[in-house]
């Protein structure tokens, strides 16, 4: 930007000493990254993720390339991997809580696609039916309300993927989603949904910030 005296800052006439210039550039770099990520300050990690979980997740995510939108239609897009909190689970059901960063949701977050990945351990040659319940926070209080549920047939041990519908996407947009996975019928000696470090359930989401309020230009 030209200055009032028609000199521009980049012309080198108002050069700072090297150390001051370096400090200024570092400050600009930090500020620029935080602003573009819609963060007011650098995140402080409250729940560190184990290396095993991180490695597993990144290995699982070599899916087909996603459709690329034309530049004009794109807000800034994010792909988010959210690890589930499983604190309120027991043998009969696995409860998965997901939290999303409030700084980003404040700017208006549109979930384009979300899917759940979970690891199931079954006895050989068996098929289980899992009921997947989606809970959302009530409109007035913090109580959970059942939004939808669906049945899923699982016939092999290993990682499974479930594409989540609009109710779950809406809950993610509001910053919190709770899922319950309930095995139907047969009683098990231990939980069929595993949640150890390398098999921790997680959700992947494709997100656009500020997309809802964008005006399309013709």
């Amino acid at each position: 930007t030209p200055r009032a005296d028609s000199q521009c800052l980049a012309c080198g006439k108002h050069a700072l000493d090297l150390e001051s210039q370096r400090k200024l550039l570092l400050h600009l770099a930090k500020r620029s990254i935080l602003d573009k990520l819609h963060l007011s300050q650098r995140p402080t990690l409250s729940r560190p993720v184990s290396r095993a979980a991180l490695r597993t997740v990144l290995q699982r995510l070599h899916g087909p390339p996603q459709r690329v939108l034309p530049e004009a239609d794109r807000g800034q897009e994010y792909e988010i991997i959210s690890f589930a909190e499983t604190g309120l689970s027991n043998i009969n059901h696995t409860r998965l809580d997901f939290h999303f960063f409030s700084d980003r949701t404040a700017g208006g977050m549109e979930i384009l696609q979300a899917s759940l990945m979970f690891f199931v351990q079954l006895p050989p040659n068996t098929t289980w039916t899992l009921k997947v319940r989606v809970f959302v926070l009530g409109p007035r209080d913090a109580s959970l309300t059942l939004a939808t549920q669906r049945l899923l047939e699982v016939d092999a041990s290993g990682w499974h993927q479930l594409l989540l519908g609009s109710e779950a996407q809406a809950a993610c947009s509001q910053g919190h989603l709770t899922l319950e996975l309930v095995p139907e019928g047969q009683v098990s000696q231990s939980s069929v949904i595993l949640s150890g470090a390398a098999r921790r359930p997680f959700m992947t989401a494709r997100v656009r910030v500020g997309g809802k309020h964008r005006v399309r230009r013709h």
Partner: protein
Amino acid sequence: GIDCQGGSRMCCRQEFFVDFREIGWHDWIIQPEGYTMNFCTGQCPVHVAGMPGIAASFHTAVLNLLKANTAAGTTGGGSCCVPTARRPLSLLYYDRDSNIVKTDIPDMVVEACGCS
């Protein structure tokens, strides 16, 4: 565009790398290990103004020499050394809830500079 070398005072691209470990951000940014920011610096005499990438062709060079010969002064005049090409920065990082986020931040890395 021209990369800054030695004592050149003309508009050029200066390389600048921010090491995330050095600024204590390596705990929340998984990849990359740093940010190649770069910036534009240097003077834009009148005869190179309006020429992103400095010398676009023989004809523009001749026209700009004519402009320079008729203009008063050799610096300033509202022309600035600015980025003419930029590319996105891809980041993989932890957010406050320990979610892993991947995004491409547009226009973060200065690839070339020129006079506005």
